[in-house]
């Protein structure tokens, strides 16, 4: 699903618009820091606009393009730790530990 028209600048990053955490986390682990930095820079600068756009709709009845935008911003949240602090996709000092998300409120 395409993004709302006024967010067409984010279209190159649309593959980050994934509905569930396991998908977003897997994409984070499979991405390079350059890829995540580019996505972060583009999306972070539009975060306030995105929130304003989504909030123009009733929360329990989002149009599909606003939902896609929401998923994209959830992707931004997912890459924020690697970009803002870790400088790597994996959590430092976490070795082989894993934590699967098994219940989540999917938008």
């Amino acid at each position, binding site marked *: 699903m395409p993004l709302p028209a006024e967010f067409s600048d984010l279209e190159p990053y649309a593959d980050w618009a994934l509905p569930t*955490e396991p998908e977003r986390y897997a994409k984070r682990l499979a991405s390079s820091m350059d890829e995540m930095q580019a996505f972060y820079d583009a999306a*972070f600068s539009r*975060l*306030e606009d*995105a*929130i304003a756009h*989504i*909030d123009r709709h009733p*929360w329990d009845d989002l149009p599909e393009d606003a939902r896609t935008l*929401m998923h994209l*911003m*959830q992707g*931004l*949240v*997912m890459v*924020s*730790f690697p970009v*803002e*602090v*870790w400088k790597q996709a994996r*959590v*430092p*000092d*976490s*070795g*082989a*530990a*894993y*934590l*699967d*998300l*098994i*219940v*989540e*409120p999917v*938008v």
Partner: protein
Amino acid sequence: MPHFPKPAAGSWTEHYPELGTAPVNYSDSIDPEHYEAEREAIFKRTWLNVGRVESVPKVGSYFTKELAAAETSLIIVRGKDKQIRAFHNVCRHRGNKLVWNDFPGEEVKGTCRQFTCKYHAWRYDLAGELTFIQQEEEFFNVDKSDYGLKSVRCEVWEGFIFVNLDPDAAPLAEYLGEMAKGLEGYPFHEMTEVYSYRAEVGSNWKLFIDAFAEFYHAPVLHQKQAVKDEADKLFSYGYEALHYKLDGPHSMISSWGGMSPPKDPSMVKPIERVLRSGLFGPWDRPDIDGLDDLPESLNPARHKAWGSDSFVLFPNFMLLIWAPGWYLTYHYWPTGVDKHVFESSLYFVPPKNARERLGHELAAVTFKEYALQDANTLEATQTMLKGRAVTDFPLNDQEILLRHLHKVARDRVEEHQSKEHQDAAAR
């Protein structure tokens, strides 16, 4: 120089003299015999929380719970009369596991009108009564009323469903005691937006409780999570709790508020500033009743800087309530002396807008980053304890809950074993 006052006894630990202050022997976390004894003395005869009422919302809603430490699997189901019941997940015909999907070891959930065994189609209603026997005439005067599902004690406290395999156990409310009573009335039922995580961790179940029953390690192990200046500041302060309390087998630690909201926004990451949320949860409280007049067990020190209270409800259930109006649960389900299944769930008031929803998302993502570091550390601890090069460890005053947990677990094992001996002698 302490930042917060300690009890007159001089320390939290000495306030409870029965705990002692000696180094603690950790063979209880590596000894297979002790683990077997814990299964009998603790997991087969203590109230265990298996979830919330919201996960069985309607008549026929059910879920299964694997209790490896108690050598069983349970079905929790809401009946026609709205009652929540628990049964051993075993068919009375020839012992097949009654409710499961493709993989017998995996937990399942759903809604149904009755349970039908996959093996020979015996059927049970939602109250556990046997209602159908395939080719009943081939049996020898079987009375169906003798073959209902085997039930398990099941009681609900504040929306939390507990089970107990011991038919003679004291009622749940009595077991939970005064401290838990002082949590009644907290608006748990408003916090229905749930994020749940699960992992198998290569450590004894008590070691992960140890990691979450003290925050003394946080400025060290999780140092890299904060921005540099904040991390340095936290490290130089160290950690002290506002208050500790023990109540029978249970205990709690009360902590200050940390970063929700932060005193200085430059001390937090850019995304936190926009989403007004982070590890300590959303900076803005949800608009619900029940957060102003907190029940008496919360913030026992009545401190202005209060941020969260963690309750260890023995044996394996932790309830972490945060000042900004959300809560977390932890469960540690033993599967062996050196492994357990760790579950954690974050509960928020459902969001009203995108900023709130993304704020929850950020809190959940941040939680996972921390928990991965904790889980990984435990495996390192377990392997080194196992070598027994060092057996006794000096626990400090901020580690009082750990000292208490290991003592309670050991005491329960000893009490149970001496009772078994007495019973055997009497026979």
